[in-house]
């Protein structure tokens, strides 16, 4: 399969993008040939190029203007079904020859595994418009202007806001793959990235730390994204001031923001849905395929076709098509995520979930996670359902993917009384078990929200969480 980003709008920068894509493919081909000369039976070269302009702000002022461009290439080889991998950012012949020899040397030292083989080439449908022509000329000047606007808007919101750090910039990336199994693909992507972090300070009262980030491909969306980002950050940070201890500890309903819901409940399901975790006996959901694992209405999908999410992609780290995949549907566990290795263990096709970059061998994971909304209404309606208890906007803690046990601090959290936000609370801990509580999702908000530009999820009301007041 030979694929490239065809049908894109050609504009300023498009020629250089195509030139770069051709160059990456040529480097991959050359390294694969080098690997075969070094003794590999099979070889896969994956190259990545990125250039970025980034304005970094600190303490409410410009800290650094950063311009950067670089490439890396990684080589995976199999020799007698033994695995080796090597990578470099040096593209002279001697370095590439050394990469090939090291990959083969590592393979020679490794034990054989019958599942060690590269996946066959499959047709790829390209996701259109991952590179908007309007971003071709976006450089350090535009990054500085954007960052300045971001900072000015935050400072105008409330003088008590202290912006600890903020970034604005553009990153343009291309990735290419070539293998001895006929996989040959290249794709480019460009995004404006925004982030802001800090807190509100009022005399001796230092409010809870908060951060927001976003990634946007469409330049016409940047201004709106910036406004939403700053306003949400500023409002939350200011409202974190004058936090009190929660009035009581309890076990029961907690209202979780999309961000907190993803961390506490969706991330462990994704980890347990790795086919490798299932095959190796470390998935808590390993024997529950087809079972109900969550409340009715709870679903998880991977949507690499969603261009509004940073993980949108046409193919995965092994050059396999990245396709829409439903993991959980209406509470029922529907499938596992496979990369080439996990698929080979079971003699089936990969689901296109090999992940990673040029500097490491392919891993396994989802591209762009989406949790559909439910019938819980908007945030106000869900507060009404909660009536009394804790609202959590960010979870700072750990979730053990093996057991599902989680424990951590409820950040930017609020106490709710009579279905309304009563005020911010501090030093409040959350704990529970994600796999057990999935069945106790009491309501999902109607409209999913974009989280950090990389996922979509709704607000969620979950029963049975332990809340420890400070």
């Amino acid at each position, binding site marked *: 399969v030979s694929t490239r980003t065809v049908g894109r709008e050609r504009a300023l920068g498009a020629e250089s993008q195509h030139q770069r894509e051709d160059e990456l493919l040529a480097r991959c081909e050359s390294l694969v040939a080098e690997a075969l000369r070094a003794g590999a039976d099979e070889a896969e070269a994956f190259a990545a190029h990125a250039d970025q302009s980034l304005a970094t702000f600190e*303490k409410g002022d410009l800290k650094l203007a950063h311009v950067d461009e670089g490439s890396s290439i990684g080589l995976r080889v199999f020799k007698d079904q033994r695995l080796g991998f090597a990578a470099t*950012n040096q593209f002279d012949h001697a370095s590439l020859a050394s990469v090939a020899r090291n990959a083969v040397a590592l393979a020679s030292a490794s034990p054989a595994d019958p599942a060690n083989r590269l996946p066959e080439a499959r047709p790829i449908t390209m996701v259109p418009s991952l590179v908007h022509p309007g971003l071709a000329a976006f450089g350090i000047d535009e990054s500085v202007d954007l960052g300045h606007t971001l900072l000015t808007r935050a400072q105008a919101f409330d003088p008590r806001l202290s912006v600890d750090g903020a970034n604005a910039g553009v990153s343009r990336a291309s990735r290419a793959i070539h293998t001895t199994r006929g996989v040959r693909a290249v794709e480019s992507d460009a995004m404006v990235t925004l982030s802001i972090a800090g807190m509100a300070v009022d005399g001796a009262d230092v409010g809870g730390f908060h951060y927001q980030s976003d990634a946007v491909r469409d330049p016409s969306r940047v201004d709106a994204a910036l406004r939403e980002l700053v306003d949400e950050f500023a409002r939350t940070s200011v409202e974190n001031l004058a936090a009190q201890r929660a009035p009581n500890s309890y076990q029961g309903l907690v209202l979780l923001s999309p961000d907190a819901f993803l961390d506490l409940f969706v991330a462990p399901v994704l980890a347990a849905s790795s086919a490798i975790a299932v095959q190796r006996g470390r998935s808590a959901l390993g024997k529950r395929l087809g079972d109900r694992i969550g409340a009715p209405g709870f679903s998880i999908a991977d949507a690499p076709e969603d261009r509004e999410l940073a993980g949108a992609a046409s193919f995965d780290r092994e050059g396999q098509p990245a396709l829409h995949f439903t993991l959980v549907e209406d509470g029922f566990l529907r499938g596992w995520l496979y990369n080439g290795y996990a698929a080979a263990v079971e003699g089936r096709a990969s689901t296109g979930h090999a992940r990673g970059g040029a500097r490491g061998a392919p891993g396994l994971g989802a591209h762009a996670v989406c949790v559909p909304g439910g019938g819980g209404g908007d945030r106000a309606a869900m507060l009404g359902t909660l009536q009394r208890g804790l609202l959590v906007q960010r979870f700072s803690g750990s979730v053990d993917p093996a057991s599902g046990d989680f424990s951590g601090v409820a950040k930017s959290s609020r106490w709710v009384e009579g279905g309304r936000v009563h005020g911010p609370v501090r030093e409040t801990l959350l704990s529970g078990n994600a796999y057990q509580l999935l069945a106790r999702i009491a309501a999902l908000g109607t409209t999913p929200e974009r989280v950090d530009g990389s996922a979509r999820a709704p607000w969620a009301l979950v029963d049975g969480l332990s809340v420890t007041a400070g």
Partner: protein
Amino acid sequence: MLEPMQSPAADPTDLLHEALAEAAGGFVELRWHKKETRGISVEKGRVDNATSSEHSGVGVRVLEQGTFGFASTDRLEKGAIVRAIGQARAAARASSRARRERVPDLPAVALARGRFDTPGVDATRERSIEAALEMLLEVERGARASSSRVTSASTSYAEIFEEKGIVTSDGAKVWTRTVRPEFRVVAVAAKAGEMQRGAEAVGVTGGWECLFETRSAAQLAEKAAQQAVDLLDAGYPEGGRTQVLLSPALVGLLTHEAVGHTVEADFVASGSCAAGRLGTRVASDLVTLCDSGVSEYHDGAGGTMFVDDEGVAAQRATVIENGFLRSYLHDRESAARLGVAPTGNARAWEYDDEPLIRMRNTYIAPGTSSLDEMIAGVEDGYLLDGASNGQADANGEFMFGTREAYRIVRGKKGPLLRGVNISGSAFDVLQTVDAVGAEFRWDLGSGHCGKGQPAKVDAGGPWLRCEVLLGGRKS
């Protein structure tokens, strides 16, 4: 035997110096930085990863029109470095209009010159990767065989070689080499549909012998497997504010997360809870807390470095002395603003990252109590061990995870309970310290700190008795 992919034939600082001479003018900092990683991971008898990677290049930072500009090149060639200096200057000029408060010229400070190698670089390079692979397979097999309840085990080993040449227009000229090996083992045990995980990790600055000086790989694996099995039958602690004994690993997390971040001068300038508190009491008088580029008390601390990435000697900074806040952690810019000497805390993860204020080896100095005495002094509380992840906010509110908990009632330690997260406000917790152990240990394992860029750090201390908020299950 794996081969280095690229290495300068001679001292890299000579070439940097030549490039600097050709593009002289204003403050320029050049850092050639090569990172070479060799790693293997094994799970259930299968090799998941056998990797050798090498990435190198030159990071260029300039100060022009009161603004820092940064650019990088992946070529160790004079022409490419000179071009990168030009790009960094152009970036600084282009962005200086957005800079409200100009960075003053950096004052003269003592900058390092010469060659600095941490121990173990050559010996580790000569050790075959095959030997490491053999060890990983054997230890992983042993962990699985240790109990019928262990369903899965994995082991991983990595050695990270770093070589840097740093030249600045105001006199630094250093060449450093470091190696940091890491070992990690995870075991998963299952019973009646429930799973628990045990994990142990160790990471040092030094060679293989240093890595396994205290405990062998097999002992670490045995501990991880036992922990996973024991946790299956363990209950949950109750939540609430309580007296605890923190192990050296958890003291390390406390010093790093709860205190260390709040005294990084960039966080201080943003209004962290340590701002304006120099000279005031922030802890009980039993607490002396330092951050050092040197591996104090025991060799091998993971964040050991002789010179930071601005060319400043990475000396010890005494942050809290007998309960009083004495110093922040500085780079050259923040030190100049406060009129103090830089502490050698500027660190960059790779060549294309700019130096940030980061910790190195952070610790609480040992006291005089024995662990038995400390347990005997607890009326009702918990002994906590095994560090998991941790985070802290600028207001000093921290959280970190523990793997094991033991209830202590009237001075007697009870059975194992499942680990939980603990939280508190840094300086409030340090004020409650009423006993500090005599035995010292570096114990952040293979942990890295994340602050925009990763950084290899270490932390530790003695056992410590204090009060925290415990996130239990039956509140």
